[in-house]
């Protein structure tokens, strides 16, 4: 069974009295351990689709299963639980909690979402902090590290709960080219090490090339699907 199955997904946004279609019937499947990218011009629906996969929003119609769960109609708190259990998120602006140290940012999902015991948390945090190469900076606050380092911490925070799937909307848009490549390399290594699927969006053609699977969106429709490179 594929990790993600989307069938004829549509999403309309309400703007005043108008219905603005953002996705106009999108169907696809993504298997476990994927390293996939949503690409396409601005306004094509990449973020909308990632939000639906991330249980942050409901599709207007269609069926959407992630890891065997129908996520199209989850309640607010069920969606929060699902995200906390099965998903990881990486953001364009890193979005670390400024008052928490690198270590505490990575620990947050285990502490405040999962409620793990201190020993379990410690073991797990040390493992991922080492995997992203941030142990030296563990005690630093986010404002004391570089953008690339912040995104490493974000990758670690996304992976710490051993999710099935990590979603990243434009994870490299705020990074210079070299750093962007390194972050993508890190994500791929993490996929190799932990078996986690990664889906990210980008409109940078070079970054796109790093994906093993690309879905090209145009005006709310999937126009091309295929293995890149």
């Amino acid at each position, binding site marked *: 069974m594929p990790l993600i199955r989307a069938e004829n997904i549509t999403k309309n946004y309400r703007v005043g009295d108008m219905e603005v279609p953002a996705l106009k019937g999108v169907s696809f499947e993504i298997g476990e351990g994927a390293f996939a990218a949503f690409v396409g011009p601005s306004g094509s629906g990449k973020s909308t689709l990632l*939000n639906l996969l*991330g249980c*942050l929003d409901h599709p207007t119609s269609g069926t959407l299963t992630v890891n065997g769960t129908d996520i199209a109609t989850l309640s607010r708190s069920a969606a*929060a*639980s699902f995200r906390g259990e099965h998903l990881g*998120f990486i953001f364009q602006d890193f979005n670390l909690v400024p008052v*928490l140290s690198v270590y505490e940012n990575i620990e947050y*999902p285990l502490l405040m*979402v999962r409620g793990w015991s201190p020993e379990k948390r410690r073991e797990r945090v040390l493992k991922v902090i080492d995997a992203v190469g941030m142990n030296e900076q563990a005690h630093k606050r986010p404002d004391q590290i570089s953008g690339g380092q912040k995104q490493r911490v974000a990758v670690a925070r996304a992976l710490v709960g051993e999710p099935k799937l990590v979603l990243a909307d434009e994870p490299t848009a705020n990074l210079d080219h070299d750093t962007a490549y390194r972050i993508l390399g890190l994500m791929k290594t993490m996929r190799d090490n932990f078996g986690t699927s990664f889906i990210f969006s980008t409109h940078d053609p070079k970054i796109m090339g790093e994906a093993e699977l690309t879905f090209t969106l145009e005006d709310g429709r999937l126009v091309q699907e295929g293995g890149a490179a």
Partner: protein
Amino acid sequence: MTSTLKLAARNLLRYRRRTLLTALLIMLGVLALLLFVAAAGSFKQTMVGSITDSMLGHLQVHRKGYTQSIDNLPLNLNLQPNAVGKIELALKADPDVAAYSLRVKLGAMFSNFTENTSIRLNGVDPAAEDAAVPALRQRINDGDKTGPLVAPGKVLIPTLIARGMKVNVGDNVVLVVTNASGSVNGKNFVVGGILDGVTGPGGRDGYIHIDDARELLRMDKPEVMEVAVCLKSLKSLSAVQQRLNAALGEIRNKEGKPATELHLWSDLSPFANIVKMIDLMTLFIRIMLIAIVLVSVMNVMLMAVYERIREIGTLAAIGTQPGKLMAIFLSEGLLLGIVGAAAGIALSYALVGYLNLNPVVFAFGREQITLRPVLELVEVGGVLILAVVVSALASLQPAWRAARMDPIQALRHV
């Protein structure tokens, strides 16, 4: 729980100056309330103590209608020996009554042989009066403070008359009285002591021995105008009042109506109104404190939520439950309120301690009052509960907003 509090503390420290100012504001509010309550409490206690212990007693019994015309010191509204006996029985039977004094009250002409003035007098039994109003003795500023309060043939006069009539302790004076049947009677007295005045009616009365008073009035029966009662503790005031009202209600006049009336010190002294005013002011300060905590905590928390919309979106997106988000912001507001209140309480204790080591003395009317403020545990606990409840209320709406926020919109917020 502790991790939520830790996060709250860190976030409060993030905007150090704002947090400090708000906590300071709450601290000052708490300080103002606690200091006022402590000082006013001490003032009240001193004043009430001086009024009850040196003059009124805690409650008084009169013949029905006497207090209404007490200004004229009527001679025809006396408690008859029969009634006095019953009153004494009721007082002796009450476990909370410490002592009582029977008084014969009269107005007299006071003469130093060259000038006259009028004087209000209490004829008392020295031992009984001493027991019922033990602080009366302390008001003697000139004369014998250790012997019997007032011996037969002696008169204690208020400072005002002593000064106005230029008489001193040991001087001979004459008291002239018109009795109930209209005949005039006079008697020589020696000034036995001069009394400091106290605030309120009766605060400028003189004292003679009860036998002298009855002789002056040519009373043939041991009638009494006033019974001043001292309780073991002011706390039992209303209980004693109820019991005595029941017991004294049995004493009827010829028409079968109650023959006596019972009054508390607060019914007799205008200072009771000042006490009410102080209590009202305390209430206002309390309301101000509530407003201060409510507005300042709510202001900080609304700002905190507004500033951290993207952070809230992030936390929600990565799976933080709405309830947890709510707890994060609620504990932030609570912590702010509690820290401010705790600082205020600590400072209040320090200041009250200082005031007890270096007492403030001030004059109220003709009395020197030494403030000995005490912080009651109930009051301190009340302030803490107030701070907790009000800051929780103030954070409720902002926290609710944070919990209800749509993660996508929150994440998109700039």
